[in-house]
């Protein structure tokens, strides 16, 4: 039976990608002069962050950060992303790595900086600046962080931060890490010194604002839930 033989040949396991193909491929290439040589690495469409119909479901069972923290006082890491100061409770961090070149993956949202393996752990790294700034106008951003646009250092959107990232801060036990520019300090924070936000509204990843340090408190669990769902910082 013809079809039978045909399939047998095509599906010969051992012959797959053996040198015999090289000559075939070469002759085909010459036959088809229309095949241009342009290696198009760049994607013809820039990746846009338009996703109008994302699901609005809240992750179930994730308590608000202030509820999860057992004590009134808790230690937190302060770090900088593009001039914005960010904090996260030490108890919810999985470690810190020095920033290394990442493997870029096409098709990922712009906030996805890349993938890297460090000491056998596969890490998905978020571009911290892009995450914070995504689709957010500078003023709005400054407003939500209670920054004063005239006196405070505010992030410059045109700034290309990824060349200068220094660290990857790992989020709890997940394999997500967030790239940042600088580690500032570890401080003891009083729950009462934080303006906690209602996490059921927009940006559940932003747990609140620390008044004294003028800094944004991350909810790492909410953040990784959003990352796992492929959402952007301004979605949900």
């Amino acid at each position, binding site marked *: 039976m013809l079809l039978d033989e045909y399939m047998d040949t095509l599906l010969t396991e051992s012959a797959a990608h053996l040198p015999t193909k090289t000559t075939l491929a070469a002759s085909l290439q010459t036959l088809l002069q229309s095949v241009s040589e342009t290696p198009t690495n760049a994607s013809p469409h820039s990746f846009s962050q338009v996703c109008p119909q994302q699901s609005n479901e809240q992750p179930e069972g994730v308590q608000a950060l202030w509820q999860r923290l057992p004590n009134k006082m808790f230690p937190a890491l302060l770090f900088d992303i593009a001039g914005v100061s960010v904090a996260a409770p030490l108890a919810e961090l999985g470690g810190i790595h020095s920033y290394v070149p990442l493997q870029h993956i096409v098709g990922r949202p712009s906030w996805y900086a890349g993938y890297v393996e460090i000491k056998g752990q596969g890490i998905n790294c978020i571009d911290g600046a892009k995450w914070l700034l995504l689709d957010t106008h500078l003023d709005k951003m400054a407003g939500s962080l209670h920054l004063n646009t005239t006196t405070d250092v505010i992030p410059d959107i045109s700034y290309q931060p990824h060349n200068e990232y220094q660290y990857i801060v790992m989020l709890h036990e997940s394999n997500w890490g967030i790239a940042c520019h600088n580690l500032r300090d570890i401080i003891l924070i009083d729950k009462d010194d934080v303006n906690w936000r209602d996490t059921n509204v927009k940006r559940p990843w932003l747990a609140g604002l620390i008044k004294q340090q003028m800094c944004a408190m991350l909810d790492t669990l909410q953040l990784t839930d959003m990352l796992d769902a*492929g959402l952007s910082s301004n979605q949900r």
Partner: protein
Amino acid sequence: MTCSAIWTVANQKGGVGKTTTTVTLAGLLAKQGLQVLLVDLDPHASLSHYFGLDENDSVKGVFDIFTCSEKLTVDVIQPCIYASHIDNISVLPANMNLATLDGQLGQSPGMGLALKQALHCIKPWYDIVLIDCPPILGVLMINALAASSQVIIPVQTEHLAIRGLDKMMQSLLLLEHKLSKQFVKTVVPTLFDKRLRATASAYKALHQQYHQTLWSDVIPIDTHFRDASAAHMPASHQFPNTRGVRAYAKLLTYLQQHKVTIPHVVG
């Protein structure tokens, strides 16, 4: 993000809604937050056209993978994949050159496994791969099926089309035997026009012959699909609340719940 499902949308008959099914399911999967890779194996590149990737032959794509003379690695394959204008959808495009493959490489040993090898290299990056096939049983469709675990077979609800389905099912059986694996097969009635009596009797015949693999619902005729294709958009994104899209959403729920395991995204 470790294991991905690979689905092929195939039928040896043309114009039955293969490309529409591929694009619409991809759109719905992308909305769930899953990373979707679309592979266009049709030389007419109508899937690539949706994403503006069919304009010229200089676009790298599936053809470059089939004719690659080196070992297939991530470095070879990545330049052939493009981010699309739809969040979470990437495309491995086709072009007209693919039509020459059957003549040139169609008989060479092992050629049916090239796509499987290629997808194996990049599998970790995607939650699901959807492959759109040309309506011919040849080296391209065999590549798709060899790489896949699930086959979605759109069938126009019409007597002639159902006769064609026999051929497709026989080919699948033969391939299952050759590959020593079983596909999860789902026959999907498409272009269902409830106003026509012929449609109803065709559906009945379909049900009699294929009740085991037949999806119990239908994809209705809906002009929005044509409009979405003209707008280069998956109908799921352009007309999310139409009858046709809702029917595909039901189909997807069925495929996800009853037939296949799609990994839910884990970091």
